[in-house]
């Protein structure tokens, strides 16, 4: 092994190998004075975020209204699908293995549509994160929305930041017990509504709603509501930002997807530092920057961080600190945007003296459009596939035991299990025909008597079902057949067709 000292680079900087000669004795015992035992665990520092108003707060209100509205309202939307299918617009019918979404009905064999949706969600995450940073975390994540809702409940019962801090420290007197009781009851009601709305997606909402209160619903419904009530109460009411900081993998994944051209919430330290009060800055304008160190950005933060320390895992980029800082800057008559949505690249350029650019210009870059293109093409491809998919399908499986059957008159019979799929919400007549068999070949089924054996048969497939038909195909004595085709035609104006080739086994073939 080379002498570490020879790893000197020409420019005089040391390689990592330069650290090796340091370890000649136990450096800790030798060099380090005895230290206090480090603290391995710490109590959560409660976040009492202050009320704020501004464009981002109003946007958060809007997103909360829309997302909660969708969540609680969707199961109640009715959608007429005729007499053979449920009339709920969005329904995950696990018992019958159907997924209804307005005009779209998905069968289990089409689960790739759901996989496609998940892929779209994944690429959508790339798109949103590379363009506007952790916007999902800041506005739309259920954890964020419910935490926000619960923080409004806190504010409603206990007052704003200072009052809540005081109440937290106050001893447990009846008034505090009453307030806490009322607040936690409200948490519980919201949590139960959350769990209650969830189950409505899996059954007819009005029926289940009534059954739930008359204790006639399935035990699974009560269990689901109980679990979701518990998790909402616990995660939204008490864990809050700790879910983002300690539990959730997304902040880690999203951090890996950000680059210097992604929009993030940043404190422009080149403008803000050195921090000082307005008075101090008036005395020494050269010494102080724009930040008046009022800590409003910290006070309004729903995760309790100081954005001026830079990008960090706790920042969900909700923009409330921008609202707070802009108000303060307006009061002290300084330009807005000391904390702002900006890219790292733009921050550096501005620090070097470049003019400010509107944030939306950061979106105009190839990466955004490539993600958008991929995301959009998957969506268009899925819509195309949905629009053109066949609502009729035939699958054939020949009986393997016995492979053929000799009949009294010397003719040879093969048996097949046919699956006729009717994805329309109405019963349909379908014709099954034999193609490629010797003349005289006939078939009958388990429902059609052998007296009525013929080369084509008509069966009725119930609405929205797959009908299993056992078909017996007979070729006359002395004839042989190899492979042939079952042809299916729907006897309605759509005249949808499907066919499947299968084999005919003759005596002596095996």
């Amino acid at each position, binding site marked *: 092994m080379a002498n570490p000292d020879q790893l000197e680079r020409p420019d005089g900087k*040391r390689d990592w190998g*330069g*650290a*090796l000669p*340091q*370890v000649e004795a136990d*450096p*800790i015992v030798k*060099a*380090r*004075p005895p*230290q206090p035992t*480090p*603290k*391995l*665990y*710490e*109590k*959560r520092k409660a976040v009492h975020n202050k009320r704020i108003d501004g464009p981002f707060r109003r946007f958060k209100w809007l997103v909360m209204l829309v997302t909660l509205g969708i969540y609680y309202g969707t199961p109640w939307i009715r959608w007429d699908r005729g007499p053979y299918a449920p009339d709920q617009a969005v329904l995950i019918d696990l018992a019958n293995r159907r997924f209804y979404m307005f005009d779209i009905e998905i069968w289990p064999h089409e689960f790739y549509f759901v996989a496609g949706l998940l892929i779209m969600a994944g690429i959508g995450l790339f798109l949103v994160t590379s363009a506007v940073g952790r916007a999902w975390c800041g506005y739309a994540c259920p954890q964020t929305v419910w935490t926000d809702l619960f923080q409004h409940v806190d504010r409603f019962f206990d007052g704003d930041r200072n009052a809540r801090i005081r109440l937290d420290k106050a001893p447990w007197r009846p008034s505090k017990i009453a307030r806490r009781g009322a607040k936690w009851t409200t948490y519980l009601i919201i949590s139960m509504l959350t769990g209650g709305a969830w189950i409505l997606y899996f059954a007819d909402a009005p029926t289940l709603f009534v059954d739930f209160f008359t204790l006639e619903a399935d035990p699974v419904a009560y269990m689901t509501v109980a679990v979701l009530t518990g998790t909402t109460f616990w995660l939204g009411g008490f864990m809050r930002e*700790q879910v983002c900081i*300690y539990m959730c993998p997304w902040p880690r994944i999203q951090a890996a997807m950000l680059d210097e051209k992604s929009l993030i919430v940043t404190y422009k330290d080149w403008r803000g530092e050195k921090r000082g009060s307005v008075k101090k800055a008036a005395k020494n304008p050269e010494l102080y920057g724009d930040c008046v160190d009022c800590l409003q950005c910290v006070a309004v933060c729903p995760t309790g961080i100081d954005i001026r320390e830079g990008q960090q895992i706790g920042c969900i980029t909700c923009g409330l600190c921008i609202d707070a800082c802009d108000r303060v800057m307006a009061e002290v008559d300084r330009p807005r945007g000391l904390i702002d949505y900006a890219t790292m690249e733009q921050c550096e350029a501005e620090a070097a003296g470049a003019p400010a650019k509107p944030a939306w210009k950061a979106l105009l870059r190839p990466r955004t459009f490539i993600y958008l293109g991929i995301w959009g093409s998957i969506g268009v491809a899925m819509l195309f596939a949905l629009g053109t998919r066949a609502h009729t399908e035939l699958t054939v499986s020949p*009986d*393997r*035991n*016995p492979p053929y*059957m*000799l*009949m*009294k*008159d*010397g003719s040879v*019979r093969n*048996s097949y299990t046919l699956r006729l799929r009717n994805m329309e919400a109405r019963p349909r007549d379908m014709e099954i025909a034999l193609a490629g068999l010797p003349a005289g070949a006939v078939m*009958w089924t*388990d*429902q*059609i*008597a*052998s*007296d009525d*054996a013929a080369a084509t048969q008509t069966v009725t497939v119930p609405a929205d079902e797959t009908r299993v038909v*056992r078909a*017996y195909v007979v070729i006359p*004595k002395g004839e042989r057949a190899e492979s042939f085709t079952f042809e299916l035609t729907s006897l309605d104006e759509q005249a949808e067709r499907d066919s499947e080739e299968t084999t005919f086994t003759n005596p002596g073939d095996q």
Partner: protein
Amino acid sequence: MSEKPRQNSNIDEPTGTEFVGHEWDGIQELNTPLPRWWLWTFYATIAWAAVYVVLYPAWPMVNQATEGVLGWTSRGQLSKEMSAADVARRSTFERIAATDITKLSADPELLNQAISGGAAAFRQHCVQCHGAGAAGYEQYGYPNLNDDDWLWGGSLTDIQYTLTHGIRWEGSDETRVTYMPAFEGVFNDGQVNALVSHVRSLSGETQGSAAGAQLFDTNCAACHGTDGAGDRAMGAPALNDAIWLYGDSPASIRRQILAPRHGVMPGWSDKLDPVTIKMLATYVHSRGGGEAEAPVEVENEADAETDNVAASAEAGDDGQS
């Protein structure tokens, strides 16, 4: 770092976090404290494990694991689930028991359940001889149940009777029984050959002779009929079709004339309950060769030919719908 070892500072300057105090080759570990609730969660899982060990089988001992206070076993759970399934099936069984086998087809759902139940019972009790596909074994003389040829009748009631009482079964007084006499020593070699040719000619497999026809009429037609159509009333097989229980080669037929083999099927009335037998009959009937119920007065007719014609005319209109 190497120039200025952080000997006196306990704080990492860039992050403001204190060090734990461990150092490896100049790399030090920051102390980012875990949240306190995480610790409590850890203790809670330990407590849960302790409770679980007491309640459920846990510690492996020499012969078996500790039993647990709740007394739970996987076998116990299985038997509980099995008896729950029995209870769930009971109403279907009762409905099948209460319905005449010929009337089952009026309720397609009930018929389907009967066929499924029969298929399960078939796998357990019948495949040993008749095979998993119910195709039988020619070399042993176990008949094929899929085709349209029946020795004793292929209607639901016929099959049910055969299942209940068996064929040549000592355990039942009402068993289906018939014996073909052995013609060993009765015919000379030429006569046997003529007879074999005639029997094969009945289904068009070869040319017969007048001598063979003469022998057949005298010795065989009483049971098998002049045209070889057989007689189900006495279980005499049809000789004029393409299906042969013991094979259609001249040697097989010759052997059957000289020293006939007689298969035995057990009756199942003492092993299986009537509902299972009924379900088995519907399953066998559904295999593609089931026949319609013969009108009662025809079945009692002595004229075997009429019986056969009537049965085969209605074959297929077999009440499977």
